[in-house]
């Protein structure tokens, strides 16, 4: 292992649990590769239900990882989502930590 045996659990506990949840990780990675996307696009791309996606987005918004903007196109409401700088940094940190941790499992 790259780290000492006592360091591994501490590192695991430090993993960002907001990002670590699979559905939220998918949402964040999807937003990571685009400038912004609307709610419907994310719903179609991730396969999450409307309620499920809405709930995860609320958590991500509370954590400051996703910026949510509501707007209207004609009479139709549209929710535009963008990964914030904090969210981008959180994903970068998460992937670095996970790579580091998983490297030790071989």
């Amino acid at each position: 292992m790259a780290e000492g045996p006592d360091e591994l659990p501490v590192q695991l506990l430090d993993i960002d649990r907001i990002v670590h949840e699979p559905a939220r990780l998918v949402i964040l990675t999807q937003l990571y590769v685009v400038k912004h996307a609307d709610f419907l696009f994310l719903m179609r791309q991730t396969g999450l239900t409307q309620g499920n996606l809405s709930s995860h987005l609320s958590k991500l918004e509370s954590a400051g990882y996703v910026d949510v903007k509501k707007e209207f196109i004609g009479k139709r409401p549209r929710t535009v989502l963008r990964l914030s700088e904090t969210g981008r940094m959180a994903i970068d940190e998460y992937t670095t930590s996970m790579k580091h941790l998983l490297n030790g499992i071989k």
Partner: protein
Amino acid sequence: MDEHVLKGGPPTLSLGELERRALRSTVEDGAAELILGLFLVALAMHGMTGSYVYIPVIVLAAPMWRALRRRFVEPRVGGVQLNDARTVQLKSAKRIAAIVVAPVVLLIIGTVFIDAPWRKPLSEFKPLLLVGILSLPIIIAGFLLRTPRFFAHAGVLIVAGMMSIFGVFTFNVALTLAGLVIGICGGVLFILLVRRYPISSVEGDERG
């Protein structure tokens, strides 16, 4: 997206693949093929009647594509804006495509308009050169978007050029047929998307 990331998606979470999927989602509706088919038919009409109807089609292509997406596609599958870095890459790809296409265009101008001694043998291949010019950007788009059906469209165009050379059809008829095939393919994709994702399936204030 047909394959959900969470259910039956790729075994690894690849950012590159996610980005390609987002990019590909902008052409999955078939609107681009509808417009391409229309352009090819208009180009063939120019050959048959001398009308310049293809010019308004070229000018209106981008607004038509945007209108189709805003009116029919985005309310059903949502909208996405690609990253600036990807947009720059696409612009670079367009520049490369232009550099590749330019010599072929010059060759066509040489064979069609300039009275050069080498004109005669080359002019016989004019249809093939023209379909070459038209299919090259389609092939590049197919490669960039990992969309195999674009290669099929380029193939249809090349077959049209070959049929014209072998005298099966005149070039304009072959081009019209190619335009119709590509346009119908786009139309079918468009109708399938509209039927698959009815607006009524999206509830509340979370429509795209």
